[in-house]
């Protein structure tokens, strides 16, 4: 039952990623066709464009949502692959613990970076 619920979250997170990462890829890599959310004529990764996006509440929220969804989707997928190799119970517990710890640490770090750059850009923008 627990695994079915986690699997449903995995699929749901995939749908969230599809929308938000699709937008991210469009902004960053399909700018030759669709030029959105790039305030200046420079490259999407130019500081002027990065700084402009950092001022947006929409981007702050979407980055944190994407971060959480992608970390869960990715680490749960990795757990599925490892568990399919039939590890022992002890190793399963260790894998679960390591993936949860790594996921939480990366989520907190990424959220800090998004929040710190948002706050800074709001004050200095």
């Amino acid at each position: 039952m627990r695994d079915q619920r986690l699997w449903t979250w995995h699929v749901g997170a995939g749908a969230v990623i599809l929308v938000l990462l699709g937008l991210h890829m469009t902004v960053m890599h399909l700018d030759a066709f669709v030029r959105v959310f790039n305030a200046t004529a420079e490259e999407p990764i130019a500081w002027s464009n990065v700084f402009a996006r950092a001022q947006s509440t929409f981007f702050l929220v979407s980055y944190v949502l994407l971060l959480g969804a992608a970390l869960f989707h990715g680490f749960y997928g990795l757990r599925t692959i490892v568990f399919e190799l039939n590890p022992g119970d002890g190793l399963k517990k260790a894998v679960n613990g390591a993936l949860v710890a790594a996921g939480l640490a990366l989520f907190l770090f990424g959220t800090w970076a998004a929040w710190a750059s948002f706050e800074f850009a709001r004050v200095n923008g």
Partner: protein
Amino acid sequence: MIESKGRPNRLGIVGWLGGGRWGLERYLYTLHRVTGLGLLLYFVLHIVVTSSRAVGTDLEARKAWWEWAMGNVSGGMFVAGEYLVFAAFAFHALNGIRLGLVELGIGIGRPIEPVYPYRTSVHEQRPLAIAVMVLAAIVVLAGGYGFLH
């Protein structure tokens, strides 16, 4: 994930590529996993590299940190790697949509009597798999154009 109880996975990772005369969908399964692992590795590095935008006490320092970080991941090899990530995302996302549809019972046909010569749902879902791969190829090519320009 529903754990296997009676039929353990004896082939392990070797079974991703070898183990039988498998159809297209089996190789899409393998590619889905390989691209998923690649995207996860890239994502973890991406979180660390892009956090450089939050380092520095003033505007000039932050800009300098950002440009230093981007400078460390620029150049031909990184651009090629980034394009591979884009292609992996396009494949993984579109194949993921196919898997979601199949899981919901869409595109696999209606249940039929098992009358010889037997037909499986694989025969029904093959057009969906081909359509999704054609779409993925178009997105990958469009992304390639974007990377070159």
